[in-house]
């Protein structure tokens, strides 16, 4: 099922259950696996090669002894729940059920997730984000470190968020930069805003336009025309 919108996404369904959700709003299971350090880049690349024969990336990873099936499932399940939250937290323009199966997701949840339980979990997360003490829009709000906070007193996870909070990045961008799911990062950033560790970036920090006073496309075109041998 294709959801058009900002950010939108694709729900992959098998036999009525959701096996994967791809959304530009939330890191995929693959990203979570790699950035958590649970699977190394080299093992992942090798698993992709082996998956052609093994039938699936999951089978290839497990077959290589890199990770157990239960753990892969946990990552894939986290990605499905986060993907559903990411789609629901954005604007939904339209939904379309594709008759043809689309691209096969790299790490589907075996057996899938019942749509009812996914809906309930997504509604719970939307409520939780809506009732945060400091409301945060994951796709609109850009954050910067507040002045006067010593990074040394922060937890490692918070230090990483602060490091990537350049003011150009939205909450969603920070989640991708740190390689963690959108929902926990949204909750964490809201808390950090409340505690004065982060603040909402000014438009001057969010966009950094610069130009070299080039006046010139046309002028150079004319020069080229003039310089052309007759």
């Amino acid at each position, binding site marked *: 099922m294709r959801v058009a919108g*900002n*950010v*939108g996404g694709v729900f992959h369904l098998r036999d009525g259950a959701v096996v994967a959700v791809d*959304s*530009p*709003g*939330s*890191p*995929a299971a693959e*990203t979570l696996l790699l950035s958590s350090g649970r699977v190394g*880049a080299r093992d992942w690349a090798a698993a992709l090669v082996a998956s052609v024969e093994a039938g699936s990336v999951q089978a290839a990873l497990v077959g290589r002894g890199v990770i157990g099936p239960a753990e892969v499932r946990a990552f894939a399940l986290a990605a499905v729940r986060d993907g559903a939250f990411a789609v629901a937290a*954005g604007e939904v323009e339209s939904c379309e059920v594709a008759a043809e199966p689309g691209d096969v997701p790299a790490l589907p949840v075996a057996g899938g997730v019942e749509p009812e339980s996914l809906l309930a979990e997504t509604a719970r997360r939307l409520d939780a984000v809506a009732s945060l003490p400091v409301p945060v829009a994951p*796709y609109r709000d850009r954050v910067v470190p507040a002045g006067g906070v010593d990074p040394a007193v922060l937890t490692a996870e918070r230090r990483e968020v602060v490091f990537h909070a*350049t003011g*150009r*990045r939205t909450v*969603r*961008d920070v989640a*991708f*930069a740190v390689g963690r799911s959108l929902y926990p990062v949204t909750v964490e950033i809201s808390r950090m805003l409340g505690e004065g560790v982060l603040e909402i970036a000014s438009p001057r920090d969010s*966009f*950094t*336009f*610069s*130009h*070299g006073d*080039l*006046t*010139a*496309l*046309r002028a*150079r*075109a004319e020069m080229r025309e003039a310089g052309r041998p007759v």
Partner: protein
Amino acid sequence: MDYDALVAELRQLRENVAGVTDTVIAASDGIPIISDVAKSVDPAHISALAAAGLGIARQATEVIGLGSLSQTVVFGSKGYMAVYAVGRMSLMVALGDKGLNLGRLLHESRPAIERIGTILAP
């Protein structure tokens, strides 16, 4: 040159397409015209690479007979660099993270490129 109009286009692109991290408009010889990039990104380098890449891609479409060139995309394990021709004289670069939806980017870029082309060569 109407830089404010270019600013509006680049701003809109980054706001409307999740995953776009940096944007540059450059002349097709690789000289940057305007950029909106992170501190770690040098617009001069990106412009030069994009111009070279687009030149090769354009040659390839002509030599192989692939029709007209619409975009080139570099796929990395951590993100993307998409380059669009803006007429024959200039180009637009969009850098994106792993979550970038390339389909959405192309969809939003087409009208933007039309307008940018008009702004650059009124």
